[in-house]
């Protein structure tokens, strides 16, 4: 259960380029649901997701996760929570070029320094689950859009997080792959995970697998959210 209370975020405060990306959002998010955040670009949905996912701290306001305050944690502890709880899938996949798919999938676990054999095993299992084990030793530059997206999802799941956050996951995919992806997200929900998606793609927010749609505009929730 994620609770947001009057969350605000500003960039470049005090300077000419000051920008209030999020202006005061109060929201409760239920677990084990697929929630989609929509709105035009600049509406603050990406920023909001990054704060929910403990990637950034709100300038003011509070975010709690299962009753425990998340927003006032210093970076070290925020990262610890994030590692355990959240997995991220980015719009541009953000895989590290020059490394293989398998290495990319294992990367988020490095700071935890698990046993190497165990980690490799886990990574391969994930890749197999998502149909990517044939490509495990290929360099990521050679993957197609859909394959890269699946690799990114595997990477997001390596530390077995409860909550998956995806930012514009279908932006670089064609319709068929997009539908496949939405199906994958739905499967994850069936496995008990909470899925939060930011997207302005109608294929996403009009899909039947989506439990809730939150609309945003100019850093605030649009009326009737």
């Amino acid at each position, binding site marked *: 259960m994620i609770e947001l209370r009057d969350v605000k975020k500003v960039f470049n405060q005090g300077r000419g380029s000051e920008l209030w990306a999020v202006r005061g959002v109060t929201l409760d998010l239920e677990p084990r649901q697929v929630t989609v955040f929509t709105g035009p670009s600049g509406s603050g949905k990406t920023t909001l997701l990054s704060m929910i996912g403990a990637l950034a701290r709100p300038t003011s306001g509070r975010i709690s996760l299962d009753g425990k305050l998340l927003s006032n944690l*210093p970076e070290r*502890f925020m990262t610890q929570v994030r590692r355990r709880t959240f997995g991220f899938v980015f719009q541009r996949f953000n895989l590290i070029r020059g490394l293989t798919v398998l290495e990319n999938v294992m990367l988020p676990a490095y700071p935890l320094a698990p046993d190497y054999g165990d980690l490799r095993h886990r990574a391969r299992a994930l890749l197999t689950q998502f149909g990517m084990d044939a490509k495990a030793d290929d360099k990521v530059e050679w993957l197609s859009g859909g394959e890269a997206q699946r690799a990114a999802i595997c990477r997001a799941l390596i530390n077995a997080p409860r909550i998956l956050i995806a930012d514009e996951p279908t932006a670089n995919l064609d319709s068929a792959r997009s539908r496949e992806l939405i199906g994958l997200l739905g499967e994850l929900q069936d496995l008990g995970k909470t899925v939060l998606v930011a997207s302005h793609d109608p294929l996403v927010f009009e899909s039947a697998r989506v439990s809730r749609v939150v609309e945003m505009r100019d850093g605030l929730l649009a009326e009737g959210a």
Partner: protein
Amino acid sequence: MLLSPAVLALNGVSFTVTLMLILAAGFALQVIRHWDLSSGSERQLELERRTYLIATLVTWSFAAAVVSLLLFVYNAEQLATQFVGAMCATGVLNAHPLGWPTLFLKILIFFPGAAWLMLNRLDNQAPDYPLVRVKYWLLLGFLPLAALEAGVQLGYFLGLDPDVITSCCGSLFTADGDGVAATVAALDPGWSLTAMYGLGLSVLGLGAVHGWRARRGASGVGFALAGALAFAAALAAIVSCVALYVYEHPHHHCPFCILKGGHGFIGYWLYLPLFTATALSLGVGLISGWGHIPSLTAAVQADGQRFTAAALALFALFYGVATYAILTSNLTMTGVWW
């Protein structure tokens, strides 16, 4: 001024360390003034980022200081040929009034540095950074010490004049000279060994007491004090008694010659554990008083136990090696001392 590369390096390092600490201190001041963990403002975020830089600067300074101490002693050893009357590092240090102060300052820097790093490690384990202001105030106090060391060392090297006739350890550490060194050397071996072992027992005992639960500040501070006293007693005992057994000579009191290869490098086995153990015990004393802060209680206990155990092991190693040196030596002083 002696223009050898080692001297240049020593001065360069000390000044660089001072500069790094000045930088760290500057940031520390900002943190002390503006730190507010509950705020998510950009300034607070920047300050949090800065703490990483400060910690890195202090860690590197500390590491450099340790190596610089070793280099200083070795260099003094090597310079001995330049000075009339000097046969080892002692003579070189004695050739100028700032020689011994430089060495003492270099040793002294080691302890607060280690203790600060331990305190920093403790503070980092609590999500609310309760000791932020405390530790950065302490850091500010650390800076003058480093600057003093750099200045004194520079003064020493600038003032070193190879034409000055100096004395070697034989005449400096001899019982009938004057000065601190002579007084230490003249200590009755029986008394100094008793003091060393007595304080050794007390440090081991207090360490065991504190390490059992590691919850109370009083036992931690007691351990630290015992550690400091044991350190002083150990050094005195080395000069007045243990070194003689190592050299197998009843009048060779030099504390540096035991580092040489001819004696199996036993000096390292004595000094490294002793210094590390003392530093750890002082650190334990510093961290033990914060158990009342809820976010730190568990960490204080865990760290306290871990470091106390390490310190005890190293103290034990030191006393073991010292005893070994005495027992296996060919020098017998029964009838003379015992």
